[in-house]
């Protein structure tokens, strides 16, 4: 089943005389249970693509559908509700609220809906057990490590059972050990709970955890790799090779 479908996505920044086309007629499809990576050099439009797909930013033209909901046809109010109920977010700088404890942060997406408290407690326990952060629930973000923060952020993204999780450079601020731990967790959750994940990254190691990787260049999809039955090492090598072809002039990773 196709969860996300984008047709002829175009995004233009700037005004009349000084415009810049960041996304040029991109077509994209994501199926349920996929773990999609988006790679590309700086300025290729990866984060912009993620933002418009996640309804945080608006497209200049084109159509985006998630679970058969046309994002362009929704008003701000409805879009917010949609985002809250169907999407999850993980960002490079964690985006936790400093004034809330870990548990309070994770509860946020459930706080508006009519989820009964006992159900919320159960969901929080389940996801925090899975991510191994159930012993820091009453700590504030300033009291925990970067890896723990990012796992908290992941727990918050996953707790509401979203249709799709968007992750923007989730390992960007982490050391390699924490990064690997987080990615293994995401991979496990993706496989076990059939959660669809879309992740922007410029780290080939991170991308090698995905089931499919898209390469962006100058606002267009340049190529696409499927993991298939390959193991992670082989897939990593393949990603590196594609990057080499892609770069030519100064790839930034």
């Amino acid at each position, binding site marked *: 089943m196709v969860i996300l479908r984008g047709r002829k996505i175009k995004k233009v920044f700037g005004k009349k005389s000084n415009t810049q086309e960041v996304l040029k007629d991109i077509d994209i499809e994501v199926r349920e249970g996929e773990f999609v990576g988006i790679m590309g050099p700086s300025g290729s439009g990866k984060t912009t693509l993620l933002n418009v797909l*996640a309804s*945080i930013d608006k497209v200049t033209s084109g159509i985006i559908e998630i679970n058969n909901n046309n994002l362009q046809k929704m008003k*701000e*109010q409805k879009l*917010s*509700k*949609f*985002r*809250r*109920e169907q*999407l999850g*977010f993980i*960002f490079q700088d964690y*985006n*936790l*609220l*400093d*004034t*809330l*404890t870990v*548990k*309070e942060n994770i*509860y*946020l*997406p*459930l*706080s*508006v809906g009519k989820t009964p*408290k006992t159900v*919320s*407690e159960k969901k*929080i326990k389940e996801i925090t057990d899975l991510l191994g952060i159930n012993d820091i*629930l*009453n700590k*504030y973000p*300033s*009291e925990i490590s970067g890896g723990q923060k990012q796992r908290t952020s992941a727990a*918050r993204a996953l707790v509401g059972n979203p249709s799709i999780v968007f992750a923007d450079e989730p390992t960007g601020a982490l050391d390699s050990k924490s990064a690997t731990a987080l990615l293994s967790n995401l991979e496990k959750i993706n496989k076990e709970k059939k959660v669809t994940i879309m992740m922007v990254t410029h780290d080939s190691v991170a991308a090698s955890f995905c089931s499919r990787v898209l390469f962006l260049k100058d606002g267009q999809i340049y190529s696409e790799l499927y993991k298939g039955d390959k193991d992670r090492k082989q897939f990593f090598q393949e990603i590196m090779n594609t990057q080499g072809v892609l770069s030519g002039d100064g790839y930034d990773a």
Partner: protein
Amino acid sequence: MVMAMTLNQLVLRSMRKNIKSYYLYVFALVFSVSLYYSFVTLQYNPAIVNEIGTGRSSAALKAASYLLLFIVTFFVLYANKLFMNRRSKEIGLYQLVGMSKSLVARLIAIENIILWFSAIVIGVLVGLLTSRIFVMILLKIVEKDAFVELSFSIEALMMTVVVFSVLLLIVILQTAIRIKRVTLLALITTTAVADERVKKFNAFQMFLGFVGLISIGYGYYLSTTILDNLNVTPNVLLFKMVSILALTVGGTYFVFRFSVALILNFVRKSKKGLMSIQDVLSLSTIMHRMKANAMSLTTITVLSASTLAILTFTYISYYSADSVAMEAVPYDYIMYEDTGFELVEEFDKEGIQYTRYDIDLLAVPADVRPLLVKEAALNKTISTELGVQVVSLKAIQNKLPNLHLQEGEGYILGYNSLSAENIRIEAQKSIQFNTSAGEEEIFIKEVTEDLLLPNYHYYGFTVVVADSYFQKLLHDPLTKNQKVVGMELKEENQLIKAQEVFEANKVSVEMPIPGNDLATNTVSVESQENYRLNMLDSLGMTIFISGFLGLAFLIATGSILYFKQMSEADEEKGTYNILRKMGFTTNEIMSGIRRKQLFNFGFPLIIGLAHSYFAVKSGWVLFGTELVAPLLITMGVYIVLYSIFSILSAGYYRKVVEDAL
């Protein structure tokens, strides 16, 4: 890139780019200048000089201008501090690219000089217009008609320029010291202030929070007892007042510093980690900011409370002018003995309609001790031997037609709030007349506030007795007979004409002071309207000045709260960004923010109102006769004006939240 960019060019360029973050600072400056200038101008306005006179009022204006200077200084320095906080990143950046500290300080100084002098020019122009409005308001208060011209005063301008130049110097110095002291790292990270974490509350903090509540309560209690005993020495009174002040102000700080976060953390914990979005945006934010905000919230509370108390006191005296005049001169016109009857003839001639009351008065020596309420009877220092005014039932029948008395019974009239503070009496007891036949007891059926006689000639109250008994007293050699004639206009609109007649026929008479055989009082035919206008004349300036200062205080405190909320909103932009991304709507976020605003504005307001209520309650009798109406009106107006700032800041929050995504 142009290499040789001069310092001045750099300043101008950065100012043009930063214009948005300047507007608040500029507003604060222009507001302060125009307020100060228009107030100082008043001293030199010809309309004021002619109508109110120069001596006493200009001294009052001068004293008030110092107070205003204090407000303005406080306000401007605070605005500068916030302004600098907002720009700490920019200042850090200048240093990061290699500018020396002294160069940055000079940069900021030049910028300030440009800003301040433009603000002075604009402020003086605005002040010129507003001062005219202020003069008109002042003349309206004292009920005088005069043409008000737009007057430009060089002296006032000089004073304003000098005062603000000195302030500018202070600001520049303050900034330079700040730049010199702070390290580059600290400068860059100032806006990302590490919020205080409420980790654990120890018993000591809990205790301090409790102490805060107790001391406010005790301060309130003390304030209600302050006028119980007026015979204490001034030192004791002063000590009591200072203790009340210290208790309430200190208590307020403790409540803000310790109790609030304590209670909120308790509520937070009770939710067991499942907080609604409203709680997230109100409860936890307030709790974490309490340490940093306690001082400013206390200042705002105390300033609001004193402003309110002063405004209420003044308004009480203004509002009471009518009723004080009514008590002093209970009829539109009063004549004593046989003097002033030309006025009656003139009224007849001019066709002015009036009702005439002829009152026969007897001064009778009496002892009121048996009448006193229990607690007052124990106080030996009260003098109870008085010359009481006695009238017959018949003489007042047409003014108060519902009284019925038998011999040996009496009514007490004119027992008002002030006499109640001095001698507290109650009905269903007896008063003792000292006649030549010995001591005679009159049973008092009722004690009322009804007015019969001018209270400043006849202190205390009047006793009404049965006609037959009055005739008996009349022939007693120990009593003294006097005559009072009161006239009440039938048509309110004839007042102006009647006043003209009265002014043309003023006469006075020597009248013995009751209870003192040797002294006499020079008493004229009196007019209630005249008395009222005289009171307004002497009160007008005080009322105007306190109203003016009150408004200045209100705007200053309101703006400071507003500025603070603006920077708080800016600091929390990241939070709103996260929440918007997660799919919370602007309205959901705003509902949480409104709760926070309710606290930030509402809490200081409510405590300020409570403080001022007790302050007013403790001393209002010294200012006038009416409490409830002036108190409610002042508080109501204050709440409305104050709310404007909370609405403004909510508007700003909405903008920040909307722009956050």
